[in-house]
């Protein structure tokens, strides 16, 4: 049994945890839900000794315990699988699993014995993985198994899982949940941090809801529902599914023919993809991450050198295959990149400076003689984006770094949507964004569509692409595995196509 009692933790000005208390009974699966920054991960990182609480107690099996480092937590039978895997990539599975609690003596590492023990544990929990494989050669699903094995190898009785399904396909999620249920049957106690309400409802026995560092609800899963959980998380009623009228598709805006993108070596990251995108419709791209979505969007946005591309990209009937990103933007192609920190923002620049990225060389950013920045124009533009897209706090002089993920995303979306574009390339628009902001972003995307913009939407969240898209392309291994009508196709069917299991 794991109990947190009045745990408080402050990071600078932020009260990350404010008297957090809850109990996880032995042999149950306990979900902790909340928006980003609600303090879920902080609370569990305290329980695992990554952070130390400012005040409050952690009880294991009814006794107050001092947990100062992960080492202490491991000794008490607590294991944690982190959202970003804690694996050493160039080392083998066995080396990763035994790291820190190696078998054999101090002068001789017994990796054979380790491999045997790992096989024993992996058989017991049906977590098959080759102990001698290198981590960097494993799929994310397999890497997650290694993380689980790492905890089980250390005889963890209490397992803390931080957003474990974020990287898995629907099929893998099902498999993963089956493993978790098996563990519960063997008496393990499992804490799962998530923000996906459907998962909470399907896997957990109890659920604790957190908001702004506080526990705002402690419920039995069988006695609650998604709407109630969402209301508790956000603090108001939330529309979980976008309501949108049917699309009124107009003229063709984007025509992609036999598009291929070369990767390193001989591999094709995008393999002979053709599709048509018309004004006033949203076409979704579903697929397990790493199946060519990134390269597809970047090829369309002009971010991949022409030498790596074959096939043609036509925008409003004009071949733009050889145009660079700036030219494409001038034609009316906007791009919301999948990784807002890498491609979307300059984190140490102000909101105002970030707002004019991409239009920094023309009006309204440039005024006198075409070489001087027009501060007033920039100010006006920024205030407009901040107002229309509800960016908080609304101070154009703040560095982008000071904003939450959701507000950073709203700033990027605002910048791109107010170009204004004729074609919108949107990648992972709500990754790491709170439910409240998700609802807002989804509404804006549908508004753009209804205003006649053509939208290409890539998302790893199946729920997101199926609910927003009018048509859906499924990518697998860089190829279009099929085109489906998301209203008429089940998630299971789409999931199967994503993993190459079927073609429609």
């Amino acid at each position, binding site marked *: 049994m794991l109990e947190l009692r009045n745990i408080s933790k402050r*990071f600078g000005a932020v009260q990350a945890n404010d008297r957090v208390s809850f109990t996880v009974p032995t042999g149950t699966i306990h979900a902790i839900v909340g928006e980003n920054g609600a303090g879920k991960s902080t609370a569990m990182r305290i329980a*695992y000794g*990554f*952070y*130390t609480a400012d005040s409050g107690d952690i009880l294991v099996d009814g006794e107050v315990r001092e947990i100062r*480092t*992960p*080492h202490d937590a*491991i000794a008490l039978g607590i294991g*944690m699988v*982190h959202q970003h*895997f*804690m*694996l*050493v*990539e*160039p*080392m083998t599975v066995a*080396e*990763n699993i*035994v*790291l*820190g*609690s*190696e078998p*054999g003596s*101090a*002068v*001789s*590492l017994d990796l054979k014995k380790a491999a045997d023990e790992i096989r024993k544990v992996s058989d017991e929990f049906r977590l098959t993985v080759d102990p001698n494989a290198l981590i960097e050669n494993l799929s994310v699903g397999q890497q997650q198994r290694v993380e689980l094995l*790492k905890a089980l190898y250390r005889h963890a009785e209490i397992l803390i899982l931080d957003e474990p399904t974020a990287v898995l396909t629907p099929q893998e999620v099902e498999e993963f949940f089956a493993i978790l249920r098996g563990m519960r049957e063997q008496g393990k106690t499992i804490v799962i941090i998530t923000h996906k309400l459907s998962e909470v409802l399907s896997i957990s026995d109890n659920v604790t809801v957190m908001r702004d560092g506080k526990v705002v609800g402690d419920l039995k899963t069988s006695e609650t529902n998604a709407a109630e959980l969402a209301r508790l998380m956000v603090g108001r009623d939330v529309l979980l599914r976008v309501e949108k009228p049917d699309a009124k598709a107009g003229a063709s805006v984007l025509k992609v023919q036999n598009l291929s993108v070369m990767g390193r070596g001989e591999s094709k990251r995008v393999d002979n993809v053709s599709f048509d995108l018309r004004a006033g419709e949203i076409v979704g791209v579903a697929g397990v991450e790493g199946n060519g979505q990134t390269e597809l969007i970047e090829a369309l946005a002009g971010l991949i050198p022409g030498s790596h591309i074959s096939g043609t990209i036509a925008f409003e009937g004009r071949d733009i295959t050889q145009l660079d990103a700036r030219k494409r933007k001038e034609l009316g192609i906007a791009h919301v990149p999948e990784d807002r920190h890498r491609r979307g923002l300059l984190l140490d620049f102000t909101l105002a400076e970030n707002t004019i990225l991409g239009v920094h060389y023309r009006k309204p950013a440039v005024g006198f003689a075409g070489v001087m920045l027009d501060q007033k124009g920039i100010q006006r533009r920024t205030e407009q984006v901040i107002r229309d897209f509800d960016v908080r706090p609304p101070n154009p002089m703040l560095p982008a770094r000071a904003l939450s993920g959701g507000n950073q995303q709203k700033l990027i979306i605002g910048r791109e949507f107010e170009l204004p574009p004729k074609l919108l390339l949107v990648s992972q628009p709500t990754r790491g964004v709170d439910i409240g902001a998700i609802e807002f972003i989804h509404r804006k995307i549908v508004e753009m569509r209804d205003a006649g913009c053509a939208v290409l939407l890539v998302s790893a969240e199946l729920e997101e692409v199926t609910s927003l898209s009018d048509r859906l392309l499924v990518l697998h291994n860089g190829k279009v595995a099929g085109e489906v009508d998301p209203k008429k196709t089940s998630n299971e069917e789409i999931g199967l196509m994503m993993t190459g299991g079927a073609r429609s």
Partner: protein
Amino acid sequence: MRQIFTLSLLFSTIRLATPLVLAALGGLYSERSGVINIALEGLLLAGAFTAASVTYYAHSPWVGLGAAIVAGASVAYILALACIRFKADQVVTGTGINILFIGLPAVLSGALFLSSGSTPQIPKENLLPVLARFVPFMPAWRIFTDVSIISLLAVVVVFVTRYVLYRTPFGLRLRAVGENPEAADAAGVAVNRMRYVGVIMSGALAGIGGAYLSIGQSSLFTRNMAAGRGFIALAALIFGKWRPVQTMLACLLFGFADAMTIQMQGVAKLPSGEDIPVQFIQMIPYVLTIIVLAGFIGQSRAPKALGTAYQKER
């Protein structure tokens, strides 16, 4: 050509590669733990100066060697303290140490020996011995027995390092800490403690390399006698992909280039019959370093966390 490629070239290569091997393996311990050790040059000089001074007073190369190890480790501890505890920039700190040891030995030897240029000559019997001392009855192997005991030690260190790195829990943790300190921390490994050990070991090994320079290969300390060997060792470490045996082979390559420059002087001729100017011959090891690093570095993968202090949020 026959005048250049002789057996003595081989042994000259071994002699010249010895300090490189020791410094490079020192660097390996530090860099595998995630701390860039650009201070190898300074550590060599610290070891060389300490060995020469202490041997001069103690009349024993072993005491001098021991003192050089302590000196190297102590200077490395300063580097570790700055880079690990105070999270200073590793390159800047290392450069500082290098600059310090261009000047500090001169100041100290000025105070101790009234000569800022070099330390006094040490009698031959007080230098680190060659193998001949231990195998006196093999005159046919004279050229082999001219090899220093430290060269033998360097080879032993290479294979011990290989074992430690891949076959002991310590090595596993050291590698993990240099690749992904967060993961090592999550697995219960004390990240910064491992890094201290790695950096201090690098100082101890470079200290031995330095001692070899002043009381093995030579018989006194002269100003800046490392002459860039610390940097060449670093290049060998990168060229050797941070692996012990490959690093040793890289050191041998650089040692060979160095030996060539000695053999070729006055021997290698231009087609016109004149000698190749000695300055050009002396450029060989450095030019080779540049070529090797520019040509092969792309295939070499550094420990991922190299150069970044581990900041744990509390």
